[in-house]
């Protein structure tokens, strides 16, 4: 009996991610959701610039590689042209919360009917570990060698909190993939974010707290601990907006 296999929505291409990186887990969760919803044939994914730049090789659905930060704008175009298709972006923190902030905020404000998977690992991975918009205060990176000094480089951007102030977005949730329980919750959130699009509800973003052992300079195991001890206290997990659920409650 087969008890575990590769989701159909993933290709057989070996991934380039570092050992201990949680991109692989999140890719798998997205693919499982695509399989379970039976939407691979009408799904179009948008890859970002950053560590997951080559995600277009890993998902079996049609894929588009966007310019740095522009994935929500590209997704807007794809969705407006083919509203029956399911469109998702997969973006890192530099891509979504720094260079692409405007695209993110305005896609949310328009309640664009797309799904965004946002990987927050508090660092620029692909370029070798520079300070990200989400790097924690005091965090040492290549471009904050003395620790992120908030008097000089400002404070981290809390994407779910920020977007939750907008009237536009349908659904915002922050999850983590550092233990089994959290991975299960992450899968639930990702599935909801896709289901919302199928139901025509609108902009759904799942922020996934992820690890970067290579650039954090930690073992994979300690990196998962770092998510628990450092990241989750600064970026609390939970649902930041769920408009349909809120409407249900008031009934």
């Amino acid at each position: 009996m087969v008890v575990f296999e590769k989701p159909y929505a993933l290709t057989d291409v070996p991934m380039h991610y570092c050992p201990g990186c949680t991109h692989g887990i999140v890719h798998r969760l997205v693919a499982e959701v695509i399989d379970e919803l039976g939407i691979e044939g009408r799904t179009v994914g948008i890859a970002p610039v950053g560590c997951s730049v080559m995600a277009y090789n890993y998902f079996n659905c049609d894929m588009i590689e966007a310019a740095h930060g522009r994935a929500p704008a590209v997704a807007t175009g794809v969705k407006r042209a083919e509203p029956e298709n399911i469109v998702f972006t997969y973006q890192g923190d530099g891509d979504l919360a720094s260079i692409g902030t405007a695209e993110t905020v305005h896609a949310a404000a328009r309640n664009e009917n797309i799904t965004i998977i946002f990987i927050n690992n508090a660092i620029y991975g692909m370029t070798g570990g520079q300070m990200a918009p989400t790097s924690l205060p005091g965090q040492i990176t290549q471009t904050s060698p003395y620790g992120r000094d908030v008097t000089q480089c400002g404070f981290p951007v809390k994407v779910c909190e920020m977007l939750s102030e907008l009237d536009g977005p349908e659904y915002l949730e922050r999850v983590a993939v550092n233990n089994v329980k959290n991975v299960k919750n992450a899968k639930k959130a990702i599935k909801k974010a896709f289901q919302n699009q199928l139901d025509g509800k609108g902009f759904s973003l799942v922020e996934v707290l992820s690890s970067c052992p290579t650039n954090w300079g930690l073992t994979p195991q300690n990196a998962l601990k770092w998510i628990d001890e450092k990241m989750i206290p600064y970026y609390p997990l939970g649902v930041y907006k769920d408009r349909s659920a809120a409407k249900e409650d008031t009934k």
Partner: protein
Amino acid sequence: MSDKVLMKGNEALAEAAIIASCRHYFGYPITPQTEVAAYMAKRMPKIGGTFLQAESEIAAINMVYGVSSTGHRVMTSSSSPGISLKGEGLSYMAGADLPALVVNVQRGGPGLGGIQPSQSDYFQATKGGAHGDFHMIVMAPASVQEMADLTVKGFELADKYRMTAMILADGTMGQMMEPVSLEYDIKPMPEKPWATTGTKMQRGHNIINSLSLVPEELERLNFERYKKYEQIEENETLYEEYMMDDAEICIAAFGIAARVSKNAVNEARRQGIKAGLIRPITLWPFPSAPFKKASERVKSFISVELSMGQMIEDVRLATECRVPVTLCNRVGGMIPSPEMVLEAIKEAAKNGGAR
């Protein structure tokens, strides 16, 4: 005889795009092209199309990138400073071989510049417009009719060659009103098997991409793209010659500068000076052949431009500097008058083409 209607250049262009079955428009307000957006905002919802005012020029061109990836016809329009912002997207679209129509109704620069007509984005438009080796098909209308005609042609060429076609208009073309006929025989859109429309579980996944990390592969892609460009140079170059049969002084001008220059040529002829005009309609590919041919016969060239002299470099290259090429220009939103061009013609005639 087709019925003509009186239309503003920007509006004729927008309606022509709709006739060419463009159903998706993304833009951002900027003078002097805002009428295109306003027209689309009115028309698109009525015909089941998309009009979306983007948060920025950058977002607008990336929405274009998204629609183009699905194979639908799509356009954006802007004016000079906005086109600079679109540069990133234009380069990515070139790298991903995506078709689209982009309109630049130019205003004076650099920087925020002014809002009056200009042709000072010639370099930007014809020499690539952003990072990397690439070209766009660049067309310069000189009438409201051409604003419409070249828009239709632009969509066809963009699809045929999988690249961006740009309408490089000046503020005058966008703002002026003329009678225009909008009757076109629209060819069916070519098949786009590369488009990301969902696999329908019937084929392998399509990927739209400009990333290529293996140098040999990226080199091959560039060489292939430039082979395509050679075909375009061979087959798609457009220009108009006016009174060139016996011309001794040849004016090079496009857009509004060409219209002004035509008046000057007529007046020069009345005064007994053999002047003529070559008007490039495609700025890339540049019509080098007629200039080269003329350079074997005429005494001198005058490049009339609303810039500090940009096209003049291509005229000099095309004519291999066989005879003098001088510049007659106004900038900053100013337009050369027919009298000014006539003076330049007289001056050239007086010098007899002396080097």
